[in-house]
């Protein structure tokens, strides 16, 4: 080892976001001071983003096993068996910080990253979903962010030929300086052809392929582990530019490589690039690796080992081939016009040894880099103001007077309004599998060559999570599963993307710990395993954190694709049935925010047994062919759900007349409260009794509340007509709201 050319000073250590203790540990591991390249490698691998140092101890609690689980967390993506020798491979990831700095490229490279995570496992990606959070659209900056992010996702996903079949977007000013961009990807693979990121077999060649390495995104991983402050501007040169065309070639090349008997392991170069892919693959196999940077394809002259090891240039992969198969691998890469080079070998000594021009420039135990990073049990405690948020005196809020106006305002609020402006920019039909397009509770894609389909949804009500992280997280899981049930699917697995503020603050850590516990309990209650996930901390600016946003992506299986259900009414004369009980649940509702400008109160109560029974009931009804539509009640409550059922169908808009009993609870709670575990069904009158019997046998409250008829939505409470508006008017407000807002400049 030659002596470090650069003195490792205290400043340098701090610039690499390493604490004194962490640095001491590095010296201990190496038995000497690191050189600059090594310091950089440790700093990226031990960053929050790569090492999960604040979250690991808590994530361990999540249930990750189940009869269908083929691969749980720890690999590039989770794998779940769907029968017929096939698996679904899925994961969700955030690209929040880069998207704030450069919305188009940030979002685009986020899509690129998650796609690579899925196709490195041997799966062909067949669907994307995106989950977005922006500040209110009343500022040019937020509009600019939204336009850029949506264009970036479209630009990358469309070019790749992977349909973006769904997603969700919520607008709240808390996200103005920290927008969230989470992307979910699902692929399909043969069960006996799953590839892992492992560098097994001493002597096997290590091959680099894809794009050339440039100076992009150096320190991207540490940036994602750092809060923004007023100096963030200076971090800008780290922006990476995506090349979806190159990624498309990479995808096809990978699948062709995997079809042959050529590979031992493969991994994409995501955050921390060549460093993470090499040390993680070696560590998983208990091996070492020797890399010679001399052979790494470069975009620019004069790149140092430090830059080469830390670059986050996109669209690159590392594979370990079977010895002797190098030429076959190289030929396939060349066919697809990719740069390719043998850059190293698997070694048996457990050391990641990096050479450049014949000299050793780094020498670190692979396992220390990949797995022995620091782990923190950070202190946590609720913020002082937590009680103030939940204690809301409803007596101070007058009950609803003009329910028509309230409904129109809710439909127009961008969180509820149609996201058509967004999903029309996404190719959501390529690959000809999309059975249910964006616009229903869950997206459904058929699996060619089988009778099956998979349903997918992403959900998280972060206002609930802010008011009560545990309950909010449970509700998010329940809502996701409910959306699947309404589509006719049974949940088979979950991926999460946990977006939070700075974990070094006890109140943020408290939110995190409670949310994880909520996910755990809800997943156990519904028997859904968590198979992959991602944590994004430090979503805060100048000490102001986002709402805790544990985003969930849930995947469901539909055994018979023709038993797929959508949310909109189908036929005049059908009856409308409400499953589930309505309580006085106004806390944290969209209604309180829009009408009373309050984000307060306790989130709705969730009884997991009732929720489970509801899913069972809805699934039985859908499979039995007894219902024509099923739509769960979420944002905006029963009235918004009914309105959406009237007009969200592409081909026709239908009216409804609904009569609700005037119980002992507030009118606004009946109309707009967000009680959980409720679903609005429509069905032929001849199926009424069978439906009520089915619900009754499962203990699910069920009530015929009206019928599909006419061209207006009319809702009465007792004898009083509360809502009476032409469906065309409702639709117009809902459908065009976002477009109108964005086109105002």
């Amino acid at each position, binding site marked *: 080892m030659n002596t470090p050319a650069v003195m490792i000073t205290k400043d340098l250590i701090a610039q690499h976001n390493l604490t004194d203790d962490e640095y001491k540990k590095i010296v201990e591991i190496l038995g000497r001071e690191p050189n600059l390249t090594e310091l950089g490698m440790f700093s990226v691998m031990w960053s929050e983003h790569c090492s999960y140092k604040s979250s690991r101890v808590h994530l361990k609690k999540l249930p990750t096993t189940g009869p269908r689980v083929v691969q749980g967390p720890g690999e590039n993506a989770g794998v779940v068996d769907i029968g017929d020798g096939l698996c679904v491979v899925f994961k969700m990831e955030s690209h929040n910080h880069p998207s704030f*700095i*450069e919305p*188009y*490229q940030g979002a685009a490279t986020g899509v690129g990253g998650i796609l690579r995570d899925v196709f490195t496992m041997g799966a062909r990606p067949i669907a994307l979903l995106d989950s977005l959070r922006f500040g209110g659209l009343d500022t040019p900056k937020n509009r600019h962010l939204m336009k850029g992010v949506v264009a970036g996702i479209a630009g990358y996903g469309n070019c790749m030929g992977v349909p973006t079949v769904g997603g969700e977007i919520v607008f709240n000013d808390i996200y103005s300086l920290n927008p969230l961009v989470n992307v979910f990807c699902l692929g399909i693979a043969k069960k006996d052809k799953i590839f892992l990121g492992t560098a097994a077999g001493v002597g096997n060649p290590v091959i680099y392929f894809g*794009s050339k390495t*440039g*100076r*992009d995104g150096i320190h991207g991983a540490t940036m994602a582990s750092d809060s923004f402050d007023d100096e963030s501007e200076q971090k*800008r*040169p780290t*922006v*990476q*530019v*995506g*090349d979806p*065309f*190159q990624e498309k070639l990479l995808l096809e090349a990978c699948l062709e490589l995997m079809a042959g008997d050529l590979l031992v392991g493969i991994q994409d170069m995501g955050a921390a690039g060549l460093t993470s892919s090499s040390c993680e693959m070696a560590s998983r196999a208990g091996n070492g690796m020797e890399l010679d940077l001399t052979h790494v394809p470069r*975009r*620019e002259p004069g790149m140092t080992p430090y830059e080469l090891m830390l670059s986050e*240039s*996109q669209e690159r992969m590392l594979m370990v081939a079977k010895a002797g198969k190098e030429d076959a691998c190289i030929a396939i890469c060349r066919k697809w*016009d990719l740069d390719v080079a043998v850059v190293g070998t698997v070694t048996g000594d457990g050391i990641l040894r990096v050479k450049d021009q014949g000299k050793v420039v780094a020498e670190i135990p692979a396992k220390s880099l990949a797995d022995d990073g620091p782990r923190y049990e950070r202190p946590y405690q609720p913020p002082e103001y937590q009680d103030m948020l939940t204690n809301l005196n409803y007596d101070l809020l007058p009950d609803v007077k003009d329910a028509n106006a309230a409904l129109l305002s809710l439909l127009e609020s961008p969180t509820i309004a149609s996201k058509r402006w967004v999903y029309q920019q996404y190719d959501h039909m390529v690959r000809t599998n999309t059975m249910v397009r964006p616009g229903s509770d869950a997206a459904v894609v058929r699996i060619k060559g089988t009778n099956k389909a998979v349903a997918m949804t992403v959900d998280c009500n972060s206002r609930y999570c802010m008011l009560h992280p545990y309950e909010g997280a449970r509700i998010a899981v329940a809502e996701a599963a409910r959306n699947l049930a309404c589509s006719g699917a049974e949940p088979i697995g979950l991926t999460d993307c946990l977006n939070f503020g700075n974990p070094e603050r006890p109140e943020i850590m408290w939110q995190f710990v409670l949310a994880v516990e909520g996910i755990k309990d809800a997943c156990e209650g519904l028997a859904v395993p968590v198979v992959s996930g991602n944590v994004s901390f430090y979503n805060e600016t100048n000490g102001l954190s986002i709402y805790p946003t544990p985003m969930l992506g849930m995947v469901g299986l539909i055994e018979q694709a023709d038993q797929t259900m959508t949310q909109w009414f189908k036929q005049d004369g059908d009856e409308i049935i409400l499953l589930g009980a309505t309580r006085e649940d106004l806390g944290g509702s969209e209604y309180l925010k829009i009408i009373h400008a309050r984000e307060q109160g306790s989130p709705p109560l969730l009884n997991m047994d009732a929720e489970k029974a509801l899913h069972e009931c809805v699934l039985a009804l859908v499979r039995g062919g007894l219902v024509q539509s099923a739509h769960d009640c979420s944002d905006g409550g029963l009235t918004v759900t009914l309105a959406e059922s009237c007009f969200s169908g592409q081909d026709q808009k239908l009216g409804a007349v609904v009569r609700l009993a005037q119980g002992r609870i507030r009118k606004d709670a009946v109309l707009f409260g967000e009680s959980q575990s409720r679903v609005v069904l429509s069905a032929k009158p001849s199926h009424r009794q069978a439906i009520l019997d089915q619900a009754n046998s499962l203990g699910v409250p069920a009530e015929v509340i009206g019928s599909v008829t006419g061209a207006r939505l009319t809702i009465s409470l007792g004898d009083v007509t509360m809502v009476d508006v032409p469906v065309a008017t409702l639709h117009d407000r809902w459908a065009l709201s976002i477009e109108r807002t964005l086109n105002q400049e």
Partner: protein
Amino acid sequence: MKARIHVTLKQGILDPQGKAIEHALDSLGFKSAANVRVGKYMEVDVNEQDKAKAEAEVKQMCEKLLANTIIEEYRYELG
């Protein structure tokens, strides 16, 4: 006055489009062509007699809208 504005990617930033064109030129047999970089060119009529004012205006336009200064740089001529 007419402003002629060039917006190009900053040095070091990946230019996938330039790369693809370079590759295409090469396979078309233009072996002497190299280092293709692609940018935008814009013409804007600026209704302003005072050259200094017009210049300030155009600079503002570039900074605010026409160039994405995170990854792009710009230059302009007035006349």
